[in-house]
């Protein structure tokens, strides 16, 4: 049985210009011990999808569908039941460590807070465990770092603290939101390796716009575009031979793969294009793509694609 099964998830929220359909009928399954990368461009709804799972969206958001986690529908839980899962069962590593860490608390205490909450340890033991967690992130001199405040750490170190904090509650499932954003090449490579090592044996959803990082840290990759998933396949397949024209375009726009741009710009989530949402920008668009919304087609063992060309 899958660890997480998202069925027909719709997350809409009102805005001044209309209803934003940030996540529109998404189906996604994550197996036990599987690490899935969720790839997409800014504003395609990938962060909202992560926030929908851990239910940290503002109260004006409307969520429909089912998120079955270990047999329970998360959307049916009360706020208190959900809270007990957060940080312990399901952890989220939020994006931008500079704003996501509390500026007036020592980083060691911020990590220990999770351990005390979900590990039932006393204050001293939790602090010791927090230092252990920091050591596991390969931060130099963890004992000293634990007693420092966020502003005393570099960007890369703060990201390590975020990772230590996310994993401190021994979660079965981790959602990591853009863990490599804003880091330079060397630090990025180190953080990706760290994430891969530290999530071994756990399940993970890694939200990122960095295809290279996702390819290195994840087993499978799901590609999101304008609120819906377009393709799900193993990481190697997505990187080497993707089927969907958008994924192809995305891969080819990487500087290392030719820097070939996809023409046009991402559509609005309020009023997405008819038919296939990618058709206005698609180099291989056909008549049917304008008229009909392509269904998600299962290719073989867990690979899916939403394109008329790939049948």
């Amino acid at each position, binding site marked *: 049985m899958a660890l997480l099964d998202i069925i027909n998830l719709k997350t809409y929220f009102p805005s*001044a210009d209309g209803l934003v359909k*940030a996540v529109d009928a998404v189906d996604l399954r994550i197996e036990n011990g599987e690490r899935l990368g969720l790839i997409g461009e800014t504003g395609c709804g990938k*962060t909202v999808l992560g*926030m929908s799972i851990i239910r940290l*969206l*503002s109260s004006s958001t409307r969520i429909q569908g089912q998120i079955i986690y270990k047999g329970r529908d998360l959307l049916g839980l009360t706020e208190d039941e959900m809270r007990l899962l957060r940080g312990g069962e399901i952890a989220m590593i939020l994006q931008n460590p500079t*704003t996501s860490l509390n500026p007036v608390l020592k980083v060691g205490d911020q990590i220990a807070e999770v351990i005390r909450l979900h590990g039932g340890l006393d204050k001293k033991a939790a602090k010791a465990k927090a230092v252990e967690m920091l050591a596991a992130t390969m931060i130099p001199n963890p004992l000293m770092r634990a007693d420092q405040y966020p502003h005393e750490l570099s960007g890369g170190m703060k990201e390590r603290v975020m990772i230590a904090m996310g994993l401190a509650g021994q979660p079965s499932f981790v959602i990591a939101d853009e863990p490599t954003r804003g880091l330079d090449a060397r630090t990025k490579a180190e953080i990706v390796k760290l994430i891969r090592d530290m999530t071994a044996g756990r399940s993970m959803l890694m939200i990122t716009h960095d295809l290279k990082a996702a390819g290195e840290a994840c087993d499978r990759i799901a590609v999101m575009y304008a609120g819906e998933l377009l393709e799900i396949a193993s990481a190697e397949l997505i990187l080497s031979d993707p089927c969907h024209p958008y994924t192809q375009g995305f891969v080819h726009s990487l500087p290392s793969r030719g820097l070939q741009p996809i023409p046009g710009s991402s559509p609005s989530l309020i009023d997405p294009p008819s038919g296939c949402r990618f058709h206005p920008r698609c180099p291989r668009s056909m008549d049917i793509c304008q008229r009909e919304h392509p269904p998600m087609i299962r290719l073989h063992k867990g690979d899916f694609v939403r394109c008329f060309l790939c049948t």
Partner: protein
Amino acid sequence: MNEFARNLSWPVLFGLLLLSLFMILAALAPLIAPYDPWEPGRPFLPPSGTHPFGTNDIGQDIFSELVFGARISLFVGFFASFVSVAIGTLIGLFSGYLRGAADEVLMGATDIVLIIPALPLMIILAAHTSPSIWNIVIVIGALWWTSTARVVRSRVLQLREMPFVEAARGLGAGDCYIVFKHILPNTLQVIMAKFILAVAGAMLTEASLSFLGLGDSMQKSWGMMLSYAFSRGGFINGYWWWYLPPGICISLAVLGFVLIGFGLEELNQDETAVNPL
């Protein structure tokens, strides 16, 4: 239009309503007031059909005093606020834009003025000058600018580091052009909120100074009415119609400004708030 309508939250709307009420009162004072507010008559008359709010110790009609008082109180409020916000804006702009030594001196001065207890100093200044409405405007203006200066400065410091200001400098534009074309327009929103709140503060301060006997006895402001009601026995003898109406007027007029200012600041805060997504 849509955007404008969205800005009108309930505090702003209610504030504008109160404000327009008092503006009309002030503008049409000679038409609304039944009597000349200076004309003496029978003293201490309680409210009646001929004198809706009764009369004071020398028989002046309190309702007429109130109507004309709106002019003075609003005038002092607006002008003192204008003076203080103008000073504060200039100091904040210079300090934030020039930085360095100019900033240290100006902000040092601001910090000093900020911690000097304002009312006691105003009392001394007012006690040494002849009581006139202009002196009150100047005294309030000269001591109320600190918070504007601080807010404007921190906004300017933020703005001058923004790439678009650097880009403007890259065009070869001069400092004046940059300050007035790029920095000031982006600061107006906070200045506006400060201005509105300063009007409220100035009206309250005028009332306090008048109450202490430092007001302009040649002008009928609400503060002066309260001052007389208190010092000439209206309060002790329980002539409530003498001291309640001017107090209510000050409170409501100030409330109008405070509501608008509060609404604007909430709006500014919403704009700077982090998007939850």
